[in-house]
C-alpha cells in the first residue's frame, strides 16, 4: 500500500476534524508534496461546503396548531417544583377549573344563534381603532405595500 493509499484512508476523517494533532501533522506533511492527495482533500472540503449550503425542510404548516393545542391541554407546573403524582393531578384539575371558570373556549360547541337584536346599542365606535390595528398588523405581513398601508393609516386617522 502506497503512502498515498494510507493517507487517503485518513483524509475524510481529517476533513471532518476527527484526527489528533499528531496524525494531522503527518497528513499535512504528505499533502505539502502530493498534489493528488491535496486535490482529493479539496474535493472533500468542497463536499462539506455543499452540505453546509443545503436547506432544511419545514414541517407542515398545520403542525404548529396541533402542537399548540396539545401544549395548551397540558398545563404544567413551572420548573423547580417537584410534585408528587397526587399533587400533580390536583393541579391539573385546578387548572381545568380555572379555564372553565374563566370561560375560555377554544372550540365552542354551542350551536351558533343568529345575532340577537340587542336592547342596547354601543356608543363607542370600535371600527376606527380596529382598522388602525389591522393596518398596523398588515405592515409586517409578506408582500405588504408599506407605502400604501401607511397612506391608509393616515386616512383612517382622519389625516
Amino acid at each position, binding site marked *: 500500500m502506497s503512502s498515498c493509499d494510507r493517507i487517503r484512508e485518513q483524509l*475524510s*476523517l481529517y*476533513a*471532518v*476534524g*476527527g484526527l489528533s494533532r499528531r496524525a494531522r501533522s503527518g497528513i499535512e506533511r504528505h499533502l505539502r508534496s502530493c498534489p493528488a492527495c491535496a486535490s482529493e482533500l479539496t*474535493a*472533500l472540503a*468542497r*463536499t*462539506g*461546503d*455543499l*452540505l*453546509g*449550503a*443545503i*436547506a*432544511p*425542510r*419545514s*414541517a*407542515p404548516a398545520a*403542525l*404548529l396548531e*396541533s*402542537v*399548540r393545542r*396539545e*401544549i*395548551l391541554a*397540558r*398545563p*404544567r*407546573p*413551572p*420548573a*423547580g*417544583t417537584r410534585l408528587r403524582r397526587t399533587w400533580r393531578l390536583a393541579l391539573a384539575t385546578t387548572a381545568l377549573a380555572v379555564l372553565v371558570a374563566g370561560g375560555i373556549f377554544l372550540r365552542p360547541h354551542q350551536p351558533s344563534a343568529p345575532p340577537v337584536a340587542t336592547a342596547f346599542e354601543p356608543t363607542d365606535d370600535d371600527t376606527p381603532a380596529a382598522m388602525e390595528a389591522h393596518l398596523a398588523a398588515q405592515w409586517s405581513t409578506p408582500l405588504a405595500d408599506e407605502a400604501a398601508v401607511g397612506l391608509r393609516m393616515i386616512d383612517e386617522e382622519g389625516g
Partner: protein
Amino acid sequence: MNRESRTPSDLVARARAGDVVAFDALYLSCQAGIYSFIRSQVREEELAADLTQQTFVRAWESLPRLKEAGAFLGWLHRIAANLVRDEVKSGRARLEVIASEMADDPLATPSTQPGPEEAAISAGLQEAVWAAIAELSADQRGVVVMHHLEDMSVAEIARALGVRPGTVMSRLARAREALRKRLSGYLEDSDVKL
C-alpha cells in the same frame, strides 16, 4: 427584524417557566431542523410530521427537567432520536429511504422566518445533494443533518444520539467520503459561491 430580548436561552428559560408564547417561538425556530432530522430517518412523511409533533410536546412536558438552557437543541434532538428509535423498534417505521422518494418530496416547502442573507445555491443542486444524502445509511444521514444542517457540535450530536464522539466523527467521515463520490460532478460547479 429586531427580536429584542428573544435570545434563545432566554426563550428556553421562559418556556421552561411555562411561557407558552416563548415555546411557540422555540417551535418556530427549530421545527425545520427537527423535521429534517426525523425525515432523514423515517420514510413516511405523515409519520415524520407526527414524530415531530410528539417531539415538541414531549419537550414541553420535560422542559422543567432540562438544567442547562444552552443544551436545549441537543436535548431536543435526543428526544427526536429516541422517538425515531422507538418507532423503528416497534416495526412501525423503516429506516430505508429510497433516493427518488427523498428527491421528489412534495412536502418539501421553504421554511418560516425571514432572516439575514447568505449565498444561495440553485434548486437543482439542492436536489442533488439531498438525493445523495438519501443514499447514505440511516446513521450517517442523521449525523450529516445534525452537523451540517443544524450546526450542532460533535459533542452535542454524541449526547443526542447516546454514542461516543469518536463514533460521530467516523460516521461523518464515512458519509463525507460517500458524498464526495456521489457529488463529484458538482464539486467543480462555479455556480456555488461559498
